Structures are given as structure tokens and as C-alpha cells.
């Protein structure tokens, strides 16, 4: 402010010097004094106006005094001229001085205003700074408190964390154990289930096959039954035929018997016939023999008579022979009779003996023919019988076979059904168990997730602690429940196993053994499969996709391969970034410290920049100041020139309100006020001075409608008045 005022004073001084006036130094001093005393108030300005006026009056009084002085007319004229000149000079000087005063006042006003505004701003800034400092302090205090609180809370939280983590670890351990258990159980289950399922499926397939077989067998059985019925009918037929056959056999036997007897008879007949043929000879012989005998008897008698004493041996032999023959003959006759009777019986004729052999022969032939027929029939029947019996045998065997098969299938079906039933039971049990385990697992998982959630969203410590405690209790309860469940399940299993054993007991021992065999077989198979699986696993491990096999060789790669390069680059980058981070950290620390030490923390941020900016601001300020000064001086000059050229001093007091004061105004208050209206025209405002100019307003403004003319007229009028008054005064 003082600078400004000094500037203003300097300018005034310069202006005053430029005037080359003859105003005494005292007055200038007075003005200076006055100007120093002056304020922005109006009353003061009025006073100053009076101050300005007083010297003029004094001059006038002096002039009047001068009039009394009497000199030569030429001198008088010269003096008058001098006087007029001097007066003019004085007037111009006065006007200039007043103008200067006005200017100075304005400047003062402007400066005061600026000063005030700046002061106000300054105070405001101060206040705000204080407030901000206070705020900062409070904030810092609060921050410290909060930090403390945070540290406490953190400590608490850490403690809690440790506690909870221990608990959690315990729980996790238990959970892990349970998981392990459940996993084991599940694994067992899993290992059992697929086996069982496989078995079941196998059994099912077997059952299906068996059912199919059974159906096929049923069909077969039906067929067989059909065949059986056929067979039965055939059998019946066969029986009938057999009966017939037996009858026939009987008949044949009878016939055979008859035939045998017949043959015997025939033979007998033949012998008889033969004998009969010999009979005549025998008779002849007999007669011969009789003759001989008689002769011999005669001989003997003759001989006896001759030689009685010695018995003839020949005769005796003859006699013996004869007796034999006689016996034989009798016998033969007996036989013959018998034969005849038989032949008659056979021939059923009572014909004479002569026709008997013929008849017998015919009958025998007939019988032979009949026998032949019968034998052929018999052979036929026998062959038939043989074939039928063979067929029957085959059918029987088949039937037996199919029946056996059927029985077997039925048996196996029943067994399988029983097995399936058992398996289903087992499966149900296992699935139930599995479900329970799954449930358990789910609950575990849920617990785990819940726990994770709670830990991740760590709210206030007390709440958390409470929640943790509750959680732990809950978990313990759950764990207890699980334990109970496990024991229950174990008991169930133990109780179930003997039941199974009991169930098995009533089953046939055979079946049991068979099943055991089967089980053994399956076990063996299982063992084999397991071995195979192990082998395959080993193989798989060797072929394990993820693992690379060296195969006894070496692995080479380029030393500067892209991966290595990339890694090196990355390392470099990381190093750089770490360095930068360190730097930034340090900077941040410095900044924090700087802010705490001084309010101008920005300076430490980048002092160079700030300095440059400040310099820039300074240069800008000086520039603006220079421009201000320049414009001020130019404005002053312009105003002066206008005043000198047109005789009006134009002031712009308010917005678009212009006050004009004539160079020749009689009073300092004589001013004309013009206002620029909205259309851009000028309106003359009424005041004390304009009220005295009614004529001129009427003429020039209302009639001629020209402001310049009006103003010129006023100028002329005032000038004339002044000069006239002067001349008049002079006269």
C-alpha cells in the first residue's frame, strides 16, 4: 500500500513539475500535506475544494486591490493584458491542480479499496490458516489416538488371532482326522461299492442270462413236454404194442413150443415113417426070421434031438437076438401107435393110417409156413420194438437232462435271487452309510467355508471372539455328534455282520460251500486283477504323462534360451522396481516429515519447480504492474488531452454515468451528468446546474438534437461569462 501511495505521490510530483508552473512551492507543499491527510471521505474532498478555491479569491482580491493603483494607460493596458494572461495562466494552473487532485483522489480511492480488500483477504487467509492449523492439530491428535487404538486393537486382534488360530488348528486337526477317517471309510466304501456293484452287475447279467436260459429252458421244457406227451402217447402205443408183442411172443412161444413139439413130432413121424418104411422089411425080416427061427427051431429040435447034450451056442444067440427084436418090435409098435395118435391129433382126422403121413406132411408144411410168417412178423416187430425203445431211451435221457438243467437253473436262479437280495441289502446299507458320510462331509465343508468366511470378514474383535466361541462350541457339538454317529455306525456294522452270518447259516451247506468257492474264485480273480492293475500302474508311472523320462541320456538346451533371457529381464525389472520403490518410500517419508515440520511441504516436494513458478509469478506481477503504470499514464495523458481540446473534464463515476465539468465552470459543483441508456444514446440528467440551462437544452437538445452543439454552446457561454465578467471587472 505504501509503495502504491508513494508511486501515486511520485506521479503527482512529476505532473506538477511538468506543468512548469509558477505556483509557489508552499502551495505544492500544502497540497502534499493535504494529500497526505486526505481520506476517501467526501467531506474531505469538499474541504480540499475549498482549499483550492481560497487562493483564487485571494488573487481576485489582490486584483481588485490592484485596480486602485493608478498608472499610465499604456502601462495599464499592458498590465491588464499581463493580468489577463496571468489570470488565464492561473486559471489553467488551478484547473490543472484541481484535476490533479481529482485524479489523486480517485487513485487514493482505488488504492484504499484495493488495500482494504487485500487486508480483508489477508485476514481471511490468516483465519483460514489458523482454522486449518487447528483442524490439522485436532486431526493429528485424533490420528495419534486412532493409531494407539489401532495398535491396541491390532494387539487384541493378534492375540485373538493366535488363540483362534490355535483353536482352529485343533479343530482343523480333528477335522483332518475326521476327514481322513471318512476318506478311509469312503475309500473302503468306494473300493467295496464298485466291487459289489460290479458283482451285482455281473450277477444281474448272469441272472439275465440265466433268465434267458430259463426261458429258453422253459421253451425247451414246453417243447420237451410236448414231445414228452408225444412220447407218452408213443409209449402208450408202445405199451400196447408191447402187450401185443408179448401176446405175440406168447403166441410165438406157444407156436415155438408147438413147432418144437411139431418138429419132434415130425422127427418122430419121420423116424416112424422111416420105421414104417422099414416096417415091411422088418416084417419081412421078421417073417424071414420067423421062418429062420422055425427052421432053426426045427434045426435045433433036430439038432437037439441029435445032439441034445451040447446046447447050440448059435441058437442061443439067435434066440437072444430074437427076443431083443421082439422087444424092439413091440416097442416100435407102441411108438407107432403113439405117433399115429399124435398124428391123428394133429391132423384132427380119423382117417386111415395110410393118408396120415400125407396129412401130417401137409399140416407140417402148413405149420412151417405159418411159422415162417410168424418169425418174419416177429423180426419185424422186434426191429420196431428196438427202434422205439431206442427212441424212448433217447427221449428219456433228454428229458432227464432237461429236467436236471431246469432244476439246476431254478436252483441257481434262486441262489442268485437270494444273493441279489443280500447284495441289495448290503448296497442299501452301504449307500445309506455313504449318504451319511456325504452329509458329514458336506457339513464339514460348510463349517469350513463358514469358518473361512468368518475369518476373512474380520469385523470387530469382540464380536468375532464371541462368534468364534460360538462357532467352536457348535463345532465341538457337531464333532460329538459325528463321534456318536461313528460309534453307532460301527455298532451297526458289528451287529449287522453277525446277522449276515446268521442269515447264512440256514442256507444249505452245499450252497454255502459253492458260494465260498465262488467267493474264493472271485477273490483269486480279484487278486489277479489287482496284480494286473498294479502292473499297469507301474507301467503307467513309467509312462506318466507329466513326468519326463530321460531314458539314460542327457538333456541340453541353449545357454541363452528365451526363458533364461526372459527371467533375467524380469529380474532386472524387479530390481529396478525395488529401487524405485525404495526411492519413493524415502521420498514419501521425507515428505511426511517435511509436512509436519513446515506448512509449505510443497517446497520440499520439488523446490526447483516451485522456485521457477514463483519467479514466473513475480515476473508476471512486474509485467502487470508495468502495464498498469503504462496504461495509467496513457489514460492520464488521454484525459488531459481531451480536457485541453474540448474543455470538459469527463469522469465516469458509476456504470455508464458520465460527469462533465467545463473548463470554464463558475463553480466546482457545476457539472453535467450524462447517462448511456439501453439504446446506446445519451440522456442528460437533471441537477442544479442543468436546471439553469433550460434555454440551451430546449434549443440544442430538444430542437437541434445535438449534444456536441449543446456542450459547445455551454462552453462558449461560460467562456463569455468569464471573460465578460473579467472584462467587465477590468472595465
Amino acid at each position: 500500500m505504501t509503495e502504491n501511495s508513494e508511486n501515486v505521490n511520485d506521479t503527482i510530483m512529476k505532473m506538477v513539475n511538468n506543468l512548469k508552473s509558477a505556483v509557489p512551492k508552499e502551495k505544492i507543499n500544502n497540497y502534499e500535506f493535504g494529500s497526505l491527510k486526505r481520506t476517501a471521505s467526501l467531506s474531505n474532498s469538499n474541504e480540499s475544494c475549498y482549499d483550492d478555491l481560497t487562493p483564487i479569491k485571494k488573487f481576485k482580491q489582490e486584483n481588485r486591490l490592484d485596480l486602485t493603483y493608478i498608472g499610465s494607460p499604456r502601462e495599464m493596458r499592458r498590465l491588464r493584458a499581463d493580468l489577463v494572461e496571468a489570470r488565464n495562466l492561473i486559471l489553467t494552473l488551478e484547473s490543472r491542480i484541481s484535476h490533479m487532485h481529482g485524479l489523486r483522489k480517485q487513485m487514493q480511492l482505488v488504492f484504499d479499496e484495493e488495500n482494504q480488500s487485500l487486508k480483508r483477504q489477508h485476514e481471511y487467509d490468516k483465519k483460514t490458516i489458523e482454522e486449518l492449523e487447528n483442524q490439522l492439530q485436532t486431526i493429528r491428535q485424533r490420528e495419534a489416538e486412532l493409531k494407539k487404538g489401532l495398535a491396541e486393537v491390532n494387539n487384541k486382534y493378534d492375540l485373538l488371532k493366535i488363540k483362534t488360530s490355535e483353536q482352529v488348528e485343533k479343530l482343523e486337526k480333528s477335522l483332518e482326522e475326521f476327514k481322513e477317517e471318512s476318506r478311509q471309510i469312503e475309500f473302503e466304501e468306494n473300493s467295496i461299492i464298485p466291487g459289489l456293484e460290479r458283482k451285482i452287475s455281473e450277477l444281474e447279467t448272469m441272472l439275465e442270462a440265466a433268465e434267458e436260459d430259463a426261458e429258453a429252458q422253459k421253451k425247451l421244457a414246453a417243447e420237451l413236454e410236448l414231445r414228452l406227451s408225444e412220447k407218452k402217447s408213443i409209449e402208450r402205443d408202445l405199451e400196447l404194442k408191447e402187450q401185443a408183442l408179448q401176446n405175440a411172443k406168447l403166441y410165438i412161444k406157444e407156436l415155438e413150443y408147438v413147432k418144437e413139439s411139431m418138429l419132434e413130432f415130425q422127427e418122430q413121424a419121420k423116424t416112424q415113417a422111416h420105421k414104417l418104411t422099414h416096417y415091411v422089411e422088418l416084417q419081412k425080416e421078421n417073417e424071414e426070421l420067423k421062418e429062420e427061427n422055425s427052421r432053426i427051431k426045427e434045426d435045433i429040435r433036430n439038432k437037439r434031438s441029435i445032439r441034445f447034450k451040447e446046447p447050440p451056442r448059435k441058437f442061443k444067440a439067435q434066440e437072444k437076438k430074437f427076443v431083443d427084436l421082439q422087444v424092439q418090435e413091440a416097442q416100435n409098435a407102441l411108438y407107432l401107435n403113439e405117433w399115429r395118435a399124435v398124428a391123428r391129433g394133429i391132423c384132427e382126422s380119423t382117417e386111415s393110417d395110410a393118408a396120415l403121413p400125407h396129412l401130417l406132411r401137409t399140416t407140417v408144411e402148413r405149420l412151417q409156413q405159418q411159422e415162417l410168417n410168424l418169425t418174419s412178423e416177429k423180426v419185424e416187430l422186434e426191429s420196431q420194438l428196438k427202434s422205439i425203445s431206442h427212441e424212448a431211451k433217447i427221449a428219456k435221457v433228454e428229458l432227464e437232462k432237461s429236467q436236471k438243467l431246469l432244476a439246476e437253473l431254478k436252483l441257481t436262479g434262486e441262489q442268485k435271487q437270494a444273493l441279489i437280495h443280500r447284495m441289495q441289502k448290503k448296497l442299501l446299507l452301504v449307500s445309506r452309510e455313504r449318504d451319511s458320510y456325504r452329509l458329514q462331509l458336506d457339513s464339514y465343508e460348510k463349517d469350513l467355508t463358514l469358518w473361512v468366511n468368518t475369518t476373512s470378514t474380520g469385523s470387530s474383535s469382540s464380536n468375532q471372539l464371541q462368534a468364534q466361541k460360538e462357532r467352536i462350541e457348535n463345532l465341538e457339538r457337531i464333532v460329538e455328534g459325528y463321534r456318536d454317529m461313528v460309534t453307532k455306525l460301527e455298532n451297526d456294522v458289528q451287529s449287522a455282520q453277525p446277522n449276515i452270518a446268521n442269515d447264512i447259516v440256514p442256507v444249505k451247506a452245499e450252497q454255502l460251500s459253492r458260494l465260498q468257492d465262488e467267493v474264493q474264485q472271485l477273490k483269486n480273480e480279484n487278486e489277479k486283477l489287482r496284480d494286473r492293475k498294479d502292473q499297469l500302474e507301474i507301467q503307467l508311472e513309467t509312462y506318466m504323462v507329466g513326468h519326463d523320462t530321460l531314458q539314460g541320456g542327457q538333456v541340453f538346451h541353449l545357454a541363452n534360451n528365451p526363458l533364461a533371457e526372459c527371467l533375467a529381464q524380469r529380474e532386472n525389472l524387479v530390481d529396478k522396481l525395488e529401487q524405485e520403490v525404495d526411492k519413493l518410500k524415502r521420498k514419501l517419508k521425507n515428505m511426511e516429515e517435511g509436512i509436519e515440520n513446515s506448512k509449505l511441504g510443497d517446497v520440499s516436494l520439488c523446490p526447483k519447480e516451485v522456485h521457477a513458478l514463483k519467479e514466473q509469478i513475480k515476473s508476471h506481477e512486474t509485467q502487470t504492474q508495468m502495464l498498469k503504470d503504462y496504461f495509467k499514464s496513457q489514460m492520464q495523458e488521454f484525459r488531459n488531452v481531451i480536457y485541453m481540446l474540448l474543455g470538459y473534464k469527463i469522469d465516469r463515476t458509476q456504470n455508464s454515468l458520465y460527469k462533465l465539468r467545463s473548463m470554464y465552470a463558475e463553480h466546482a459543483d457545476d457539472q453535467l451528468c450524462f447517462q448511456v441508456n439501453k439504446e446506446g444514446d445519451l440522456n442528460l440528467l437533471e441537477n442544479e446546474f442543468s436546471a439553469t440551462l433550460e434555454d440551451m437544452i430546449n434549443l440544442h437538445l430538444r430542437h437541434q438534437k445535438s449534444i456536441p452543439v449543446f456542450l459547445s454552446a455551454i462552453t462558449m457561454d461560460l467562456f463569455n461569462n468569464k471573460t465578460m465578467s473579467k472584462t467587465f471587472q477590468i472595465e
Partner: protein
Amino acid sequence: MTTAAQKNKSAITLKGSAEIVCDYLNYGINSILFQRGLYPPESFKSDENYGLTILMSTDNKIKEFLSTTLGWLVDRTVNKVALVITNVKTLEIMERWDFNVEYEGDVANGEQTSEKPLKQIKNEIRDVLKQIASSVAYLPLLDCLCSFDIQIYTKSDVELPAEWAEAEPANIKNAQSVKMRTFSTNIHKMETVVTYKNDD
């Protein structure tokens, strides 16, 4: 390129066969590098071979690597060439492309020739390259910064050239592998297998 192979019109020499295999490796590895996004796509320029357009990397390292491999293929000392894709951040191996080499025919004969028509071999190679290109459909997305390394699995008696170093075999945990088609020159048989880390 395959002039050595075509010198004797009806027969492919051992060296020619090795060159065919190296050509395949060059195209196959570049195709994988492009498909799996290991280099930015701008660093590839397209090249036409086997009736396919294949994008080839401008990196010379692969060619350098293949020149060494060629010699070893002629000597029949290479068991396998593996392209290993590794996560740079965790150093976890994400994928491994195995190019298993088998030697057919009279292994002791240095002047071995093959009567298999070149066109048929090229068709086989084209089929494999097509499979490689389509493998992107099922391979997991590599959404991390990855880099690759090419390793040669050799028999134990190999002279190690300069700038080469011994490496560790790359094992992948929880892996799954897909076998591609194989092709054969009747001297070298090349089987391509991709093994990748299973996300599930």
C-alpha cells in the same frame, strides 16, 4: 531346403531325412510359438509350406538351435526334442511339446536311403501341423507371462557345443497329454505329443 533329399530323385538320404525332420521342427515350433502366444503376433511373418500358411518368428535362436539338432539327427543321437513352456513368475512348467524321434531301418548304416515318396511325407507333416494349429481349441489358456525353452534329449555320448548347457528334464504336475499324428521318412520317425497342466 530339401535339395539333398531330392538329389537322388527316388531316394531320400539320411541327411535329407534329418533336414526334413528339422524343417518340420522349425515350422512346428514356430507354429506353436504363434498359437500359444509366446511372442507378440507382430514378430511373426507368414511363410507357405506343405500347402499351409505358417507364421514364422523372426527370432534367429530357433534356427541356431536347429542347426545343432540337424547334426545330431544325422548321428542318430537325439531321442527327443522338447519345447517347454514355463510360467516366468512361478517357474512352473505349463506345457511341454515332445517331438519324439525314432530311427527306423538299418541303424548302423550311414548311407541309408529311403524310398518313401517325398510328397507322402509332406502330406503326413501337413496333417501334424494342422493338428498342432487346431490344438489351441483344447489347450488351456496361458493367461500369465510365459516363456519357452527348447531342450534336446540325447543319448549319453554327445559332444556339447559352445553356448549349450545341460538342462533338467521338465516334469509337469497333474498333467494330461495328447498324442498327435506321427510321420516317418522311413529313416526318422517323428511322434508329436503335447503334455499340458490340467487346470481341474
